[in-house]
């Protein structure tokens, strides 16, 4: 079990795990939205409709593959691929559990413990813009062009508050590497509060969650593929598995963003007042830490679905107004306040 095999096993595990979560997410979205709207949602394909994502996948695979006549062939196929790459690769630096010990070999449950994890996530996050613009512009359709333009403006202008909020967190925990941030979140501060990011950065969390919704194109900000305005936004001309890649990429994006939220603000795998490693054996501890991390992510995934079916959609200028005129000032204010607090307490 030398270094290479462990890395490969971790990559394969994480890659298949996010794929599995993405498929289950399509089912959760359709059942959740149905139960919110007093109806039942898919329940014929398999027990409780669990095989519905499988059916969608098979149908999308076997659909006829064709590009519109005047579409730019290369860009048309490159769009979804870029978007999918970005969605998966952001997961490389996010720790999904503490340590696990197998036959006296300690494995860190993180694909790559990069010490500038925070910058990597931001850099990969901005790749998503390419996915939309290249796809939108390549399919030679006015609606998808408009969808692509909206996506660019929205994603770029919400990268800034996202970065500001994460910067404030890195300042409080004093390091860029996500692993150290999550390790520092054990224990309590001010006596009873757990040492989580949300209690140290309440305003920062607010800015982060709103910017995360904009990054993931979820409802209040889902203008790039506004169903009723631009027919289907940037993926109007896409059918078959290319469309599948876009839809899949969106759900994987959700999972990455919620994992990021949990790592920074909700103490990745820590349970507030209990130090798990003392009770459980090393192997059990690793697995339990993974499960705790996943449960917290599940709550945020459900929150994405829950908010989607409750509130209407922004108009484009209000979207930009909110981003520039309220989120960025809040992010800066939060940055100064944390800097000031650190100066006093240290």
């Amino acid at each position, binding site marked *: 079990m030398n270094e290479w095999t462990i890395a490969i096993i971790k990559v394969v595990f994480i890659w298949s795990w996010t794929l599995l979560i993405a498929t289950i997410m399509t089912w959760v979205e359709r059942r959740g939205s149905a139960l919110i709207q007093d109806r*039942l949602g898919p329940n014929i394909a398999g027990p409780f409709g669990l095989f519905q994502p499988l059916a969608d996948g098979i149908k999308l695979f076997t659909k006829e593959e064709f590009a519109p006549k005047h579409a730019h062939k290369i860009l048309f196929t490159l769009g979804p691929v870029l978007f999918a790459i970005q969605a998966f690769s952001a997961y490389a630096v996010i720790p999904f559990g503490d340590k696990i010990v197998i036959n006296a070999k300690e494995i860190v449950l993180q694909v790559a413990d990069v010490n500038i994890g925070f910058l990597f996530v931001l850099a990969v996050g901005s790749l998503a813009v390419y996915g939309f613009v290249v796809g939108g512009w390549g399919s030679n359709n006015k609606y998808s062009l408009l969808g692509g333009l909206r996506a660019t403006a929205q994603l770029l202008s919400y990268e800034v508050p996202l970065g500001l909020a994460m910067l404030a967190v890195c300042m409080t925990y004093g390091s860029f590497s996500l692993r150290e941030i999550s390790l520092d979140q054990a224990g309590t501060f001010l006596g009873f509060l757990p040492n989580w990011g949300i209690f140290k950065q309440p305003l920062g969390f607010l800015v982060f969650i709103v910017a995360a919704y904009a990054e993931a194109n979820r409802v209040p900000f889902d203008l790039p593929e506004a169903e009723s305005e631009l027919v289907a936004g940037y993926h109007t001309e896409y059918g078959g598995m290319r469309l599948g890649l876009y839809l899949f990429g969106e759900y994987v994006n959700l999972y990455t963003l919620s994992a990021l939220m949990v790592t920074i603000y909700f103490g990745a795998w820590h349970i507030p007042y209990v130090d798990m490693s003392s009770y459980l054996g090393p192997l059990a501890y690793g697995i339990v830490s993974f499960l705790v991390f996943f449960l917290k992510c599940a709550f945020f995934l459900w929150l994405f679905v829950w908010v989607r079916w409750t509130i209407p959609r922004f108009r484009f200028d209000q979207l930009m107004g909110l981003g520039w005129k309220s989120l960025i000032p809040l992010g800066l204010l939060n940055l100064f306040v944390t800097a000031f607090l650190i100066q006093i307490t240290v």
Partner: protein
Amino acid sequence: MAKPVVQRKYTLGERIYLVEILKGLGLTWKHFIFNFRASLKPGPHTVPTCWQYPWDRREIAPVFRGEHMLSLDEKGREKCIACGMCARVCPAQCITVKKGKVKEGEEEKYAGKFYPASFEIDLLRCIFCGFCEETCPKSAIVLGQGYELAQYEGKECIITKERLINNFKAALDSGNLKPPRKKVPVAGAKEKKSLKSGDKKGSKAQEA
């Protein structure tokens, strides 16, 4: 023309997005929990407001205007005398009736002197308005409760006399035959006379 500029001051609660969004989330959560608990119950009709069609059908009104049927009287004889009133009144002209004279041998099969040799309704044209049922002097044609009419070819949707009669027999056995139409009281007709003429006039108030 200058458009009137509209400004409305938002209260503090409205200005911050969160207050209203949380209220909205609370409401959808109530719905979600109620339906989630309901959907775990056994049986096809789990969520109260959703009917799972093939297994749990919704109750259909007795007067529902669905697939037609040619009714038989108590002695099992066909009531229809192929007078063609229904074909004339139909706005979509989708009924074609061919008249045939009753030969001696088949007295007991038909009520009147004439019988419809062929009675076809083109369901693709029909708008199920119920005028044929209303104007039929013998109340032979009746709109039943059948609504599963989808077919692969258009030709199969032209229903013939046999199917119309089978519909009636099926409805007779399953017992959800329509109650006979109540007479519509007509204003102005004199009381005694109205009983006779009113009754005749009422039921055929809108004959053609």
